[in-house]
């Protein structure tokens, strides 16, 4: 919890304390004179940057309960602003709080308007705070700071009067159905001989005022809580009940207050306002009398503090995230080390076993793959011998044919499909990439006398001889002495001299795959 400077200002003095954690420290009182103001200025020098929360405990205050039509948003703000200006023309210290909605048909809103009718009381203290460049968080009426007593003391009386004796005097704050209604301060300036009956008379006056306002009925039971820090109100309970028997008093002496709030007894004895400073430090009332120009530096301060907090949170989040990453990385690294150790163990075991292997120039896998691939290549090697042999056999039965040229190819089926009339699919049996043999034989018919029919028969016979071979898949005739196909042009002369013309041909031989 952040530190804050708490200040309670009354007509005669001011009490300051610093709240650190849940405790009050550096409690100090300053008289409302030049010496006190100087001392306060010196006091502030030690608390640079702390926000200041101020309680004002004075009779120059005003509380009003007003019922206004139920509206929302800007309209409500404008209406309430008009009302406040109308009520409190002479002071900048005013504010309001929306209490609840009326039970009537119109369901109007019920507001509490509050003001410090004379702000002069604050001037020297605010000047010192401004000089010290401390941000003012808010200015709160002492009566409204008491509201938190209801929860802290678990008070449940529908008509509740909280009586405290502070530096400014006797403060009576009345709550109707646990909601603030009125507050009265009876100054006790330099009064040392006030007895219980006089205090009780003040309480009685308050009751009569409440009865007159019809806030309470004369027969209503009033719960009175007396917070007595200095022991001067010890007989007040009896005195009150003597005057108004229908009053149920709860008296808390200094020990009780110490027990309930944990405030040191020495502070309670020395400083009459320390209880309210403690309550303000715990929870500031919603109703803040400080004008916006006064709280501007606090808003700036709060915003910068928020930015710092966001920066801190970002760093903390990033640190946590990074820490998690580092933790995970370390965990993984540890597992990596274990895995590396296991790998080395296996490698060492393998080396022991491999030491008994025959000395090999490469890995066993590579050894096997290399030999296997060499065997595959060797198995695929072919020579033109088979084709030459086949052609030779065919020539034996075709003595009228003379070879001019013979070509042999062995390779990719698609690469061999270079001649018209033979496609890649024919060559490879529809399996491109497989190695096949093929060849082209060019020759001519000897002793050709112009008899194309006879020459064609000789060539066909030659082709059939080759096609009979088991290894041959296909024999394609690429060129004949006379192209008699209908789609081809045909030229020649019947007057050509016998023996001058040549009956040339060209055939392609395709081997079976694997042959």
């Amino acid at each position, binding site marked *: 919890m952040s530190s804050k400077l708490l200040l309670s200002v009354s007509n005669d003095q001011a009490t300051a304390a610093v709240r650190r954690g849940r405790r009050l420290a550096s409690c100090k009182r300053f008289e409302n004179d030049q010496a006190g103001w100087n001392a306060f200025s010196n006091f502030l020098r030690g608390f640079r940057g702390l926000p200041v929360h101020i309680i004002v405990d004075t009779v120059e205050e005003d509380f009003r309960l007003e019922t206004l039509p139920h509206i929302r948003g800007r309209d409500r703000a404008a209406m309430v602003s008009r009302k406040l200006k109308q009520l409190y023309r002479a002071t900048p210290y005013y504010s309001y709080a929306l209490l609840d909605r009326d039970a009537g048909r119109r369901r109007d809103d019920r507001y509490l308007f509050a003001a410090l009718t004379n702000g002069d009381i604050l001037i020297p203290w605010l000047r010192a705070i401004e000089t010290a460049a401390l941000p003012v968080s808010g200015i709160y009426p002492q009566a409204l700071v008491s509201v938190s007593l209801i929860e802290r003391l678990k008070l449940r009386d529908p008509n509740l009067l909280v009586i405290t004796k502070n530096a400014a005097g006797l403060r009576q704050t009345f709550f109707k159905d646990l909601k603030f209604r009125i507050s009265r301060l009876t100054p006790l300036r330099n009064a040392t001989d006030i007895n219980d009956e006089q205090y009780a008379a003040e309480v009685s006056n308050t009751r009569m005022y409440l009865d007159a306002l019809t806030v309470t009925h004369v027969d209503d039971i009033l719960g009175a809580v007396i917070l007595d820090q200095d022991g001067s109100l010890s007989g007040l309970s009896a005195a009150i009940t003597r005057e108004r028997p229908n009053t149920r008093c709860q008296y808390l002496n200094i020990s009780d207050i110490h027990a309930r709030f944990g405030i040191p007894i020495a502070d309670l004895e020395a400083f009459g306002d320390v209880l309210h400073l403690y309550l303000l430090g715990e929870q500031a009332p919603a109703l803040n009398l400080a004008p916006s120009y006064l709280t501007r530096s606090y808003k700036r301060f709060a915003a910068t503090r928020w930015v710092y907090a966001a920066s801190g949170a970002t760093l903390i989040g990033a640190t946590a995230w990074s820490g998690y990453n580092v933790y995970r990385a370390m965990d993984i690294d540890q597992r*990596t080390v274990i895995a590396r150790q296991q790998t080395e163990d296996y490698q060492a075991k393998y080396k022991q076993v491999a030491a008994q292997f025959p000395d*090999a120039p490469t890995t066993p896998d590579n050894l096997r793959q290399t030999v296997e*691939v060499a065997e595959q290549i060797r198995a695929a090697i072919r020579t033109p011998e088979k084709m030459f042999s086949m052609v030779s056999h065919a020539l034996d039965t075709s003595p009228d044919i003379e070879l001019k040229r013979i070509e042999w190819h*062995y390779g*990719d089926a698609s690469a061999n499909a270079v001649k018209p009339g033979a496609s890649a699919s024919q060559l490879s049996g529809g399996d491109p990439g497989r190695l096949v043999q093929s060849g082209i034989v060019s020759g001519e018919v000897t002793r050709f006398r112009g008899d194309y029919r006879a020459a064609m028969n000789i060539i066909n016979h030659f082709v059939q001889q080759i096609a009979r071979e088991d290894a041959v898949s296909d024999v394609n005739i690429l060129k004949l002495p006379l192209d008699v196909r209908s789609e081809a042009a045909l030229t020649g002369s019947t007057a050509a001299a016998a023996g001058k013309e040549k009956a040339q041909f060209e055939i392609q031989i395709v081997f079976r795959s694997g042959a």
Partner: protein
Amino acid sequence: MDLTSKDLGAFKTPAIAVTVAIAVSLAMILFSSNQHVQSEKQYGNQLAALKEAKNRYQRSGEERETVMHYILAYQQLEKIGFIGAERRLNWVEDLREANAQAGLFGVDYQMMAQEPYTYVAKDNPIGDRIKQSKMRLSFGLLHEADLMKLFRALADRQPGLFSITECSLDRAGREGVPSPRQANLAAQCELSWVTIVRKEKS
């Protein structure tokens, strides 16, 4: 609320602080995330290495059998020059000797630059290490049977692994009765010298 220069001035230091905080946070997160990713990557690699080492150890018996089975054939391949750098000088010398042995009239050769050997299955793990160099031969023959005589003589020298990919015989305009003292046929062939890039033992 209208912002004044005083308000903006007050936010100078917090703005620097938040900027620094964001920068430092980002740096920390990026650095640590990177460390995390690197660690995971290393761990993954180490696990793969562990798996391989474990498998290798478990297969060590098979490996021993493999070595025993293939070592001699492998050494023979090394000897003939199938494994490792090309021995072009040996090939040329062996070709010259084969020509002499076959009694040919001389062989003209032209060797191409080495290129990948594509007649191996694509999924073969060592396929990309197999290379070939094509050699075009031109020579004259007395008789067509001399062609195979040359290649047999070459193969007998075990110069390496070669495959004949093309051959053509042409009478080359020599008509009539063959002469016993001159080349009657013009031969042109293409060989493919196949080698494999050596893989050192790891």
